[in-house]
């Protein structure tokens, strides 16, 4: 049953452009990008027990590097993508060293401070980043000569990247390394006593999460063809964190569900109310107070209860 459902779901995803209009295809592309971003954050929050409020740093920096290299320094998209991902991953390594000096709330505060510093930099260094105007007029890459300018072709591109991302992050979590990560999350001292190095495990996870954050940033800038400092803001980090927590942190599909909901809410609500930030705040309060474990764990609890009563 499960396999049939999965195959059907995959078929719907692949064939979506054949029955949906451009608006929905674009919405789906945005969901895919947000899902990769939320999945990478979930590696930290859900599986590593490291709640980061600065994950937008990786999305924003990857997007900015790619935007600057292609628009200002005449790089082709391929090399620009490689430099941008490599740079973002290196930055994650450095940020990891800084932020992992602390744990718990200290970690959260350091990641928040670091990302706010980057946000301020993007705003103030206007001769490089163009400040509040952002960098416009960017192009999408042409992998193997295929244009990604139509909604459908970009959607398939994003779907391919998202599938690889999902598979690789799932493998990461279910590998023996993933088990040791969960061990470090729950019992760091016992893990240390068993001969594991908790710091190293956390650091590697931080870098890996930064890498996928960077990948989502590349897709983000390809999709929008525009980048603005707000992509580095706390709001952007908080949206992703809300997605992870609303969907259910520490589950594989939770962040995807959560990111989808946040994005749909953002798209539909902003058609009616102008106040997205306020709504985001209210939703935060609601989720934390009403369903702290998230939607996916809540649903599976309901399901198992249903089975038991049968």
């Amino acid at each position: 049953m499960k396999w049939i459902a999965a195959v059907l779901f995959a078929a719907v995803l692949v064939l979506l452009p054949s029955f949906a209009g451009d608006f929905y295809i674009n919405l789906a592309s945005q969901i895919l990008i947000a899902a990769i971003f939320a999945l990478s954050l979930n590696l930290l929050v859900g599986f590593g027990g490291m709640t980061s409020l600065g994950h937008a740093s990786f999305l924003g920096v990857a997007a900015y590097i790619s935007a600057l290299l292609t628009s200002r320094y005449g790089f082709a998209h391929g090399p620009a993508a490689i430099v941008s991902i490599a740079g973002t991953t290196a930055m994650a390594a450095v940020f990891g060293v800084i932020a992992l000096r602390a744990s718990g709330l200290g970690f959260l505060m350091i990641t928040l401070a670091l990302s706010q510093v980057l946000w301020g930099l993007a705003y103030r260094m206007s001769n490089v980043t163009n400040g509040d105007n952002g960098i416009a007029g960017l192009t999408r890459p042409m992998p193997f000569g295929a244009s990604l300018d139509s909604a459908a072709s970009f959607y398939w591109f994003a779907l391919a990247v998202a599938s690889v991302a999902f598979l690789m992050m799932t493998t990461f979590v279910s590998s023996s390394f993933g088990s040791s990560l969960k061990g470090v999350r729950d019992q760091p001292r016992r893990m240390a006593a068993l001969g594991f190095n908790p710091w190293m495990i956390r650091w590697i996870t931080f870098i890996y999460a930064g890498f996928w954050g960077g990948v989502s940033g590349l897709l983000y800038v390809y999709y929008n063809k525009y980048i603005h400092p707000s992509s580095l803001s706390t709001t952007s980090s908080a949206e992703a964190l809300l997605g992870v927590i609303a969907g259910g942190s520490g589950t594989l599909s939770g962040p995807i569900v959560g990111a989808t909901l946040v994005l749909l809410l953002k798209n539909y609500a902003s058609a009616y109310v102008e106040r997205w930030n306020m709504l985001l705040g209210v939703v935060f309060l609601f989720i934390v107070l009403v369903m702290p474990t998230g939607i996916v764990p809540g649903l599976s609890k309901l399901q198992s209860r249903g089975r038991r009563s049968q």
Partner: protein
Amino acid sequence: MQFWIIQGLNSLSLGGLLFLLSSGFSLIFGLMRLANLTHGAFFMLGTYFGATAMRAYGGLSIWAVALGAGVAVAAIGGLFERLVLTRLKTNPLGQVLVTLGMSFIISDACLVLWGGDSIPVPTPQSLRSPTRFFGFVFPTYRLVLVGCAIAAAISLYLLLERTRLGAMIRAGVDDGQMARAVGIPVSNLFTIVFCLGAGIAGAGGVLGGPILSAYPGLDGDMLPLALIVVILGGIGSLLGAFIGSFIVGFIYTFGTALFPELAYIILFLPMILVLAFRPQGLLGHLGA
């Protein structure tokens, strides 16, 4: 020479403002183990209250306005603590997320109520003329601001070290469970400290108004500075917050004056140095 002295004074006054902001943050963190991300929004709310009150009633003294705004922000903080935070006592992550959500709500509400343009807060008439000192000219208001921060630091110190309430707070910081066991009403202390911290931030917002003026995004500008102060000084330490505030005040002011575009990066340096050599902060305890 004038440049260095003026910038030095600017650093001191920014440091003073940061102390008003971060002392409350640090107290709340020390007692409640709660990173209150609403703190920047409380500060901004204070500035907006101050700007509105001074514009509506031109004759009001800034001290009365600061007191009033402090009380108003403290009341909002107290309501938030009682209605929301107490429900999440066993869920520290949830508490942080709720304070983040609350900060979004407050800052967006400010945008609705006061619009996107910045609103200046007038410098009090009596403090407008510059002070002359050894042939150098100082803006009087900034000198007064430094004095305010020092006065606040001394009063907070006396409150914590010399009163019964302070002794109960210190007991709660050191060992909350034990304090409860000997009959100290720790959850009431939570509310008191949260109100106190929010109130100082709100009053600080008014006092900072003449320098910063009220604008949307003020909360986002101030919160990271407060976070860096607290990371530097040590979480939960009042003296640490005091020292950290002035370090950040100096680095940020001189950084902005000398390397305007890199000021934010220069803020990294002390934070990285402290985290590398003393991850608990200059004056923090390892346990905090």
